[in-house]
């Protein structure tokens, strides 16, 4: 009972700490906007391009206090951000906020498939590698991981596409086949509940859409998995090796436990902590876009959009993306911290 309460207070405390962090990030981003003249900053406040013509730009500047002291500007801006107004994205020809809302599910769909494989398989392989250190299994796993990590994603993506699309014709690029995309965008029978087409297909009873979307997700998810799994394998292996060298492992063996019990109970839980940290950061960075992979496969996710906006000096898009990235990382860290507390009782006290 006491323990559960301890965990709850811990989570509550972490949640409250979120607020100043997000505010701090917003201040940093706002500070960047101050590098631009008011005429460009005006883009951050409008909801459509017609709202900003040479004639009414003065009106916008006045309305949003763009010539006033920075603290007044900050609060005006923050009020807009809290209402979901992040300005107009030229790259997406849509408000920044809805551009993110449309593109995030695409990226998320890839991650939903890649991340569990990366984390669970990576953890498993890393642990096996540590247990059979310097044996054949360890060498194979480590070499495979290094090869995966060193593969350039554009090259690996092209090879996969050449084989599975060009040669076999199984797995096409893009997010959906053109006809399916048309159906999804315009049919009365299809409602975009989540923007995750696989899930929406099921919710709408259109399993063909789900299947089509799934076929498009496989290749990008594979590229990401093969490349990023190396990170988890290496962290899992080294933290497992460390755990296996600890005194409590000798205690566990001296108790007469089997090798399996020693590894699965005593070593693994201690090895999980660094793996949790890295997994959190990895998933957060994947969520905020995998630029090259998305570009190679023509998969309209967050990463490709952010890269385009940066190229075209689309200030509101880049800043909106930065804000989104910050929030994703803060949430990922929160989840990691809560998981820590579950895994390691010592952290609840800290």
């Amino acid at each position, binding site marked *: 009972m006491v323990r559960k309460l301890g965990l709850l207070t811990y989570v509550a405390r972490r949640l409250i700490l979120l607020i100043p962090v997000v505010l701090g990030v917003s201040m940093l981003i706002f500070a960047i906007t101050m590098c631009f003249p008011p005429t460009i900053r005006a883009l951050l406040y409008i909801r459509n391009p017609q709202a900003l013509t040479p004639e009414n730009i003065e009106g916008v500047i006045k309305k949003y206090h763009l010539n006033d002291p920075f603290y007044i500007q900050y609060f005006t801006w923050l009020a807009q951000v809290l209402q979901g107004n992040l300005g107009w994205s030229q790259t997406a020809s849509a408000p920044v906020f809805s551009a993110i809302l449309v593109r995030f599910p695409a990226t998320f769909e890839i991650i939903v498939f890649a991340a569990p494989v990366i984390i669970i398989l990576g953890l498993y392989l890393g642990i096996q590698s540590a247990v059979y250190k310097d044996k054949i299994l360890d060498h194979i796993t480590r070499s495979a991981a290094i090869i995966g990590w060193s593969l350039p994603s554009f090259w690996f993506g092209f090879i996969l596409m050449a084989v599975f699309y060009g040669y076999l014709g199984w797995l096409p690029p893009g997010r959906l086949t053109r006809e399916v995309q048309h159906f999804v965008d315009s049919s009365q029978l299809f409602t975009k509940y989540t923007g995750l087409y696989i899930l929406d297909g099921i919710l709408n009873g259109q399993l063909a859409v789900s299947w089509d979307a799934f076929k498009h997700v496989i290749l990008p998810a594979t590229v990401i998995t093969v490349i990023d799994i190396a990170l988890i394998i290496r962290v899992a292996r080294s933290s497992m090796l460390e755990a296996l060298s*600890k*005194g409590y492992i*000798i*205690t566990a063996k*001296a*108790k007469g436990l089997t090798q399996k019990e020693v590894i699965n109970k*005593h070593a693994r839980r201690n090895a999980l902590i660094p793996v949790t940290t890295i997994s959190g950061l990895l998933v957060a960075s994947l969520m905020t876009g995998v630029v090259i992979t998305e570009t190679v496969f023509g998969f309209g996710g967050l990463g490709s959009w952010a890269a385009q906006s940066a190229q075209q000096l689309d200030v509101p898009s880049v800043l909106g993306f930065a804000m989104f990235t910050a929030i994703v990382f803060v949430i990922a860290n929160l989840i990691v911290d809560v998981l820590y507390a579950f895994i390691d*009782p010592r952290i609840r006290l800290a």
Partner: protein
Amino acid sequence: MTEERLLEINGLVLNFYTYEGIVQALDGVNLYIRDGETLGLVGETGCGKSVTSLSTLVLIPSPGKIEGGRILFNVQGKKVDLLKQSDEHLRTIRGKDISMVFQEPRVYLNPVYTVSSQISEVLVKHRKEEFLKKALESLKQERRKKGLKGSTFEMNLYERMLKNPNSLTNKILSKIPGSQRRFKLEVQREVVRILRGMGIPDPERVAKMYPHELSGGMAQRVVIAMALACNPKLLIADEPTTNLDVTVQAQILSLIKRLKSMFKSSVLYITHDLGVISEISDRVAVMYAGNVVELADVYELFKKPLHPYTRGLLESIPRPGKPLKSIPGTVPSLLNPPSGCRFHDRCSYAMEICRKVKPAFTEVEKDHFVACNLYGGSK
């Protein structure tokens, strides 16, 4: 006195194969422990005390390898060579017949599990049947009191588990939450009982604690509780009091003494502290650079040390008003140990022969063994 030897180590040779070369950590270790006695194993840091104790459990840290010798242990009246047993058989001995207490209690307790879960693990491993019977019995009684007939799912499960401990169905059934409630309760009760026996105040609360919430002395009591949970025949205590305050050290020592007489276990007590040795042991084995150089009754050894190293060791105990003596030279590197007697270059009695011939471990008087060329032990 019966000459029943519980443990007998003969000519144990252990090498570590490191990148820098072969470390000859144990070079023919000989010792034995009688039923119910405490053998103190003394020696400087790095002389192979801990490796000897881990070898007794056949838990050799890598890259170590046992290259020779025997470790005879009395299992149910039969002497078996532990080095030749299967891992499966060894697991039934570890934690049940031989258990171990370590130097740094908090390092040897798993930080992510509670005290109770770590102790109950040993109980479930080695005394499962006993607790299944207990749980079944108490459930039966309860139903009889209520005047109910028949049996519940839980009772059936226990009966099946008793009949057929390795069946897969039973393992799956026992995973159902709540299916082993009474069994776990019985184990829990035993944990608390054991902790109370260790002189731990408020054992119910301590059982729910994590290792980092315990003081050093308390953690050591928990480790001892874990080691004694199955009434082992041999308790190996590897410097269990070295890092504790002197007052706590005294408490732990008297605890070990009391428990030893209660459980009639033998103890192999490892330390570098001669004061502790004189306090706790019946006999003493002195180790130097991978060899046991002298083995004798504790009074005999303090009164009439034979080996020059033992003498040096006894003289280097600080005494008020007397200048502190020490043995000249340093402990040799075991990567490249001295030839012949490993002590010869520090020994003031060294003879020509000591450079060439490794002295044999001989019984010069009754129950007094020494490995030194001075006593004609050379062969």
